[in-house]
């Protein structure tokens, strides 16, 4: 099950999206992961079957880059340092690369559950 989220409710209302976008930008910067060169999707907990499967579906390049970012961040954390400002993750780089795959896997699971419990109504 994906975690409950209000994103879809906000995106449906353009005025609310407009209102909250600057706030979301401020929050993402304040969370501090960008200062360590990470992306938001690097923070997804990977100790579950769905995310593990999603990680398998990444392209080799994306997978390599992800590991690089995480190892760099771990090193920074050990050294109690931040990256120089020029290397911080820029907001336009902070794109979801794993979430779409996880959503696709959730959709597959949902479809399988629905088909497993389908009730057939014969109309002819």
């Amino acid at each position, binding site marked *: 099950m994906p975690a409950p989220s209000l994103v879809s409710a906000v995106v449906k209302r353009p005025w609310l999206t407009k209102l909250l976008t600057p706030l979301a930008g401020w929050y993402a910067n304040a969370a501090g992961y960008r200062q360590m060169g990470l992306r938001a999707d690097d923070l997804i907990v990977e100790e579950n079957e769905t995310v593990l499967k999603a990680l*398998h*579906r990444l*392209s080799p390049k994306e997978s390599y880059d992800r590991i690089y970012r995480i190892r760099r961040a771990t090193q920074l954390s050990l050294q109690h340092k931040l990256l120089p400002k020029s290397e911080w993750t820029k907001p336009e780089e902070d794109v979801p690369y794993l979430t779409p795959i996880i959503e696709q896997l959730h959709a*597959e699971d949902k*479809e*399988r559950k629905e*088909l497993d419990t*389908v009730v*057939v109504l014969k109309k002819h």
Partner: protein
Amino acid sequence: MICRPALTRGSQLALRRQGAAKLAQRGFAAVASPKASYEPTSIAGVKVASRDDNGPTTRLAIVAKAGTRYEPLPGLTVGLEEYAFKNTERRSALRIVREAELLGGQLSAYHTREALILQANFLREDLPYFTELLAEVISKTRYTTHEFHEEVEDIIRAKQAKVAAPAIALDAAHSVAFHTGLGAPLYPTPSTPIASYLNESSVAAFAEAVYSKSTIAVIADGASEAGLSKWIEPFFKDVPAESPSPLKVTPTKYFGGEQRIPRIGPNSMVLAFPGASLSANQPETAVLVGLLGGQSTIKWSPGFSLLSNATATAPGAQAQATNYAYSDAGLLAIQINGQAAAVRKAAEAAVKALKGVAEGGVSQENLVKAIAKAKFNLLSGSEVSGVGIVHAGANLVHGNQPMQVTEAVKALESVTADKLKAAAKTLLDGKASVAAVGDLHVLPFAEEIGLKV
């Protein structure tokens, strides 16, 4: 005075005689026999061949010109075959499978050297659903990366591991006979390097090249023509009329030669000669195949066929003659499988038997038997749905007419002993294609058993 029983008895007898005469007049073929041949038509630019016997089930197949002969890179045909019925833009692979199950349908994909066949067998009333499904599979499959890594690759690897000595020998014989094109292996062996050629994007490009209206044929066995013309038009709208990047096709040339492959386990030998192509009018080849035969078709006797008599002297080996017919070439192959020593003996005996036909001809009795066998092979082959569909489809995508069964049977009857003798002589005078797989210390060279390569 005439007693009543006598009177009635007479009239009964008379009646019975009348009835018997009528029966005799009616003969055996009074029951309306189903059409033996496929009727070719064209619906909305798609080549269609159909045959309707009004049965409760239908077999609908798309035959595409995408067999191993046409693959630009090794392994693409098997990749495309495994991608059949996977995720499309409209529905997932899981949904396709579950829906087909709910309707009681059977989906399958298989290939020959010239054609890739996507087939659905289903109940007659579900024609619209399966027509839509097949059209969707060829025009809207997504060829996703994760399916390639999670499913397609594994299945290809598992099937590769199952490729056995007889298949390898047959592939080797094709390879020395035709080099490229028809010489490509029907299924790549585990030692064939395909990994660098086979990936989801190369398969998608191959699909784009081969799934167009000009390179596919729809074959329907047991579907009404009205239903086909009603449903093919709307559902095949998204299939392009011409492929943007059509495949190059080079005409086949026969070379001949010998190939020997060492292998642990079962042994196999193929002795092949130029045979009859799909469109060729060579009934003597079919009769020769009937005469060579192989497996006995009756109980408790090796039968009349030359090969079964040849293997009777070499227990532990089985031999079988087949004419592999393709659009512009054919290969008459004698395949011998079994233990190495027995295969050697059977190969020697098989060539001796063929030489016997070329020199001494064939007895009238054996000729009659061989013609009858060839007729049965032809008719039962066109009746058994799988073979019939592949044949009709292969003919149609290569621009020929589907085989006319009645004419083909008539041609078989016209074969004489002299023609058969001449046919056998041409085979032995030309270059043979010989492949030996297994224990090469025992298996003979072509030269040793008296074949020219």
